[in-house]
């Protein structure tokens, strides 16, 4: 390995240097937050003066993180459940049938992924104000469904396409009623795909800032929104407390990410799988 590395051309060195430079900066960005969250004070120098874990306790109390975490997980799980419930049947029909207007339906499902949340979030928030759902739990869940349902559709459609339709036909030939075909043939085959789609939606909803920010009220904030509010609102809060909260957010996100990566390919987190 070492001898091969030495024989790399200057171009290769440059590219690896770029990657390492990027990684070092990313690690620095994350690392300084993590380190600061354990620090007492850090006004100058390479490391904080003294370490403590009291920032976490303070952050937990000050930002009422128990309640925030509960709300976050309730919202996220509800979004996952509803988007799977609505998205999977739609993707089944899209994968199995070719019908006039299919392109229109596909376009309808791709737009919420393509248009950034802030652009449709503002009209959506305005509409939610009109129907008195703004700031409510329901409003936040509804808003988060907008990118999640299409995401499930776009993850599940290719997945269902690669399941052989002859399996269902064979079951029907053997006299299975629709209920058994669904329960014994389709559902077990769909389960891995649904798991992957569900986890991806979970990660995305957990980290979704814009839509939740635009529609949430004081009692329906998710963790990332209260992190933003804490970081931007003026107050007597110390930077360490905010960082402790950021680390709690990062930690939960990383746990979700590790779980997600057990089931999906890294590239699936950014785009629909191409193979």
């Amino acid at each position, binding site marked *: 390995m070492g001898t091969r590395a030495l024989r790399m051309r200057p171009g290769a060195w440059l590219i690896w240097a770029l990657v390492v430079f990027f990684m070092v900066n990313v690690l620095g960005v994350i690392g300084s937050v993590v380190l600061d969250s354990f620090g007492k004070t850090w006004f100058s120098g390479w490391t904080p003066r003294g370490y403590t874990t009291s920032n976490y306790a303070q952050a937990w109390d000050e930002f009422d993180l128990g309640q925030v975490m509960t709300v976050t997980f309730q919202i996220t799980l509800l979004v996952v459940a509803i988007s799977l419930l609505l998205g999977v049947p739609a993707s089944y029909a899209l994968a199995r049938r070719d019908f006039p207007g299919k392109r229109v339906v596909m376009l309808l499902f791709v737009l919420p992924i393509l248009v950034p949340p802030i652009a449709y979030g503002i009209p959506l928030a*305005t509409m939610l104000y009109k129907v008195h759902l703004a700031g409510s739990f329901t409003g936040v869940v509804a808003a988060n469904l907008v990118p999640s349902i299409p995401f499930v559709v776009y993850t599940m459609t290719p997945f269902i396409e690669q399941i052989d339709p002859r399996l269902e036909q064979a079951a029907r030939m053997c006299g299975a009623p629709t209920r058994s075909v669904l329960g014994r043939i389709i559902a077990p085959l769909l389960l891995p795909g649904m798991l992957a789609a569900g986890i991806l939606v979970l990660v995305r909803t957990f980290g979704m800032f814009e839509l939740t920010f635009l529609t949430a009220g004081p009692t329906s904030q998710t963790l990332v929104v209260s992190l933003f509010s804490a970081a931007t609102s003026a107050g007597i809060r110390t930077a360490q407390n905010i960082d402790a909260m950021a680390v709690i957010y990062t930690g939960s996100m990383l746990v979700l990410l590790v779980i997600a990566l057990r089931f999906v390919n890294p590239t699936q987190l*950014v785009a629909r799988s191409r193979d």
Partner: protein
Amino acid sequence: MTAVTLADAPKLALRHRLAERGIDRTLLLILPGVIAIAALFCYPFVYGLGLSFQPAKGGVFGAYSAFFSDSFSEGTIWKTFGLAIPASLINVGLSVPISYRMRKDFRGKRLLLTLLVVPITLGTVLTAEGILEYFGPVGWFNQTLQKLGLISAGHPVTLINDYWGVLFSLIISGFPFAFLLTHSYLSGIHPALEKAASTLGAGWWQRFRFITFPLLLPGLLTTFCLTFVLGFSVFPSAIMVGDPDGRTHVISIEAYEQALQNFNYPQGCADAMIMTALMLAVIGLVMGVRRFFYAGSTGGKG
């Protein structure tokens, strides 16, 4: 008996004819999803579009003329382009050589891809919080520059609460995204194509220039569009690490402030519509350019 069959015959035939074109009861499964998207995405959008033509003053186009006549709000367009275009060019530009270099399998590739996913999933808020400290006046970045003697002590480079902080945040969250997309496009190009060129005596530059790059270009333009959209709608980091009342007063901040701080919903919706229209214009332009390039098979995975 005959009357019943006669009455049923056209109905059955219609059902059969529809089924032949793919319309049967299975299609009903689409309805819940379509209705949800129509109610939560299309209706609000149309509602917002309608609302944007009903401002409190100034007639039908009052909100739009208010946006374009105020230099502060009109300037948000150029500020947003000024962030989104360089950021997406850098992201796409860097991911081409890097993913080209890494197109083959090597040890630790999955680990590298996983590490690259981390900044995407962490989200912009956390990235912004980290940038505030890392690139801050006494952060590690400035301290390293001082140690290397590139800047003198006490004169740190101002990177946060400015244009640069937001650009960095767009690169940190956008580059991995662009890289993973480019990488997946590149791995869709069959290696045999390059090998064939190689047997004909093509050097690496010729192989890249005449084989890989043309096949990659459509994918690159898509990647450009997606990273551009990310940059164009930059919001939390423009507030947190940027200068939201000055150099990074981007169009999303303007729309947000009008709608949810001034409670001028028509103006906020008009701003959101302008934002969407500009974005769609850029995407339309890039996709129009894309039509001129080869868009056929790339040979699939190797």
